[in-house]
């Protein structure tokens, strides 16, 4: 298409095309710059880090900072905590979310609108407004400083996203198959389990990725309810890392890279699905 415009518009078209790609280049550069620069900061020596003016390309790349943070047991524990909290949150969200989403997408009932509005309201909910009462409640039942406190709260705030996405995916599935299953005598639950779930697997998978990213990135609840290194996820540990190694900016940069790279890889592999998921609820086709 670009070439078609170029031939039609002659030099002006070619000029526009160059301008367009220059704009794209700038856009990609600005988006990626922090990650690239922080990566560079994480692999240079301390003396180079403090050099003024700063070097553009690393002179003597070193993995020393990575060796340091990975030998730090508290960082390892934090990675594990993050994985457990977000993994369990994702599983619970998918379980309750897919059941509710199926009912909303496929079954007829009267109070559908209020139910959807209520679920949607959570995604607009200022989470900070309930941390005080939850803190009191969790203290009372002994949930403070356990994975449970983070998982329960993360689940509630991730559920709208999960339900919303799954409703959009379930609606796209052909209705005839379930109806055929019903005709053959399957119950609603059986139709859901045996027909919808396998068919919806790609959509469910996308939802799982987005829910996982949501929980992995969560900070407020984790920093409110978890206060020992035994339970704190990376989002809480790394900013504190900052004060622990006050002058060790390299280690901080390395830790930031380690936490971000898995997400970047996930995003690059599944970009097409993620984009379709993110825009599913917001735009009516």
């Amino acid at each position: 298409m670009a070439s078609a415009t170029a031939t039609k518009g002659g030099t002006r078209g070619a000029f526009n095309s160059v301008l367009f790609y220059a704009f794209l280049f700038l856009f990609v550069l600005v988006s990626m710059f922090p990650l690239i620069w922080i990566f560079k900061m994480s692999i240079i020596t301390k003396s180079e880090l403090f050099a003024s003016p700063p070097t553009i390309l690393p002179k003597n790349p070193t993995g020393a900072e990575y060796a340091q943070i990975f030998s730090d047991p508290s960082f390892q524990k934090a990675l594990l905590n993050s994985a457990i909290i977000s993994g369990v949150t994702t599983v619970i969200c998918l379980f309750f979310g897919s059941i509710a989403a199926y009912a909303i997408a496929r079954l007829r009932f009267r109070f559908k609108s209020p139910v959807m509005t209520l679920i949607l309201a959570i995604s607009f909910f200022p989470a900070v407004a309930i941390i005080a009462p939850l803190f009191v409640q969790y203290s009372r039942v002994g949930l403070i400083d356990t994975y449970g406190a983070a998982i329960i709260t993360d689940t509630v705030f991730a559920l709208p996203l999960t339900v919303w996405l799954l409703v959009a995916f379930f609606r796209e599935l052909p209705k005839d198959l379930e109806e055929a299953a019903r005709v053959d005598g399957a119950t609603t639950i059986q139709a859901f389990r045996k027909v919808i779930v396998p068919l919806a697997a790609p959509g469910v998978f996308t939802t799982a990725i987005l829910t996982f990213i949501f929980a992995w990135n969560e900070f407020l609840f984790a920093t409110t309810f978890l206060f020992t290194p035994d339970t704190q996820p990376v989002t809480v540990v790394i900013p504190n890392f900052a004060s622990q190694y006050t002058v060790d900016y390299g280690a901080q940069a390395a830790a930031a890279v380690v936490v971000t790279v898995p997400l970047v890889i996930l995003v690059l592999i599944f970009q097409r699905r993620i984009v379709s998921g993110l825009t599913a609820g917001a735009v009516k086709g």
Partner: protein
Amino acid sequence: VTTATTEKKRRGGVLKEEFGNPERRTAYYMILPALLIILVVAFFPILQAINLSLRQSTVAQAGPFIGLENYVEMIQNPDFLEGLTNTLIFTVASVTLEFFIGLGIALAINRAFRGRGLVRAAVLVPWAFPTVISAVMWRLMFQDQVGIINYVANAIGLISQPILSDRVLLLIGVTLVDVWKTTPFVALLLLAGLQTIPGDVYEAARVDGANVWQRFFQITLPLLYPTILVALLFRTLDAYRVFDLFWALSNRELQSLSTFVYEGVRISQLQFAQGNAASVFIFVTAFLLALFFIKVLGMQTSTEE
């Protein structure tokens, strides 16, 4: 009285009808678990926060009822006012910038071109970053000894003091970081909206002699309006409750409404009651904002076909 009873009868009839039908009954059972979790963990605590905000409460006990005293103290608290001001400036500035830049990007890339995959990846990368981690990254770049941005801004004479030690520069900093992180997402939403506008509408307008600006203001904007509202509402409420970015980027220096609550109820715990008053304040104002978008601007919330 008669209308009330018939109303009651009718509603009882509705419930009977809803639960008498096996398909509908199943539907309610399927929704119930998700709904219960949300009500118990999110909405019930709001009632508690209201209760605590009206009492001389501490973390340990609810305390005696004192009416609106906590609210009066809160409004007179300079920290609260600073948080409120910063939050309002941040919300207006970041959402405005994100919307206009995002719309520009969406309009520019709304066509087939080589390298779409790369652009899509560039859009998603900042979005996927944990907010706190991007705050840590940018803090490193703003830092006065090793920070590239501080170095460049200083070299070209843009700043005369280190970014991290000046509150105005910090506020500009958090706003720009938010713009960096979220503009691509706004662009993505608006692009999806643009792609639902059929091309022949433009073709017809062109045949009728409409120029670029007429096409933009009379076709694109009106047809994109619902998507714009969704994007703006999401962004506004998200910016309004900002916590991670302020907390981590300024290393607890810069106050927002949310950091005020967090400090009161979790860090010092001396202002537990006032923190709860601020919680209720944030909840009610956020609710009013959402209501404004839905009622005044006519945003559609239902997904029913």
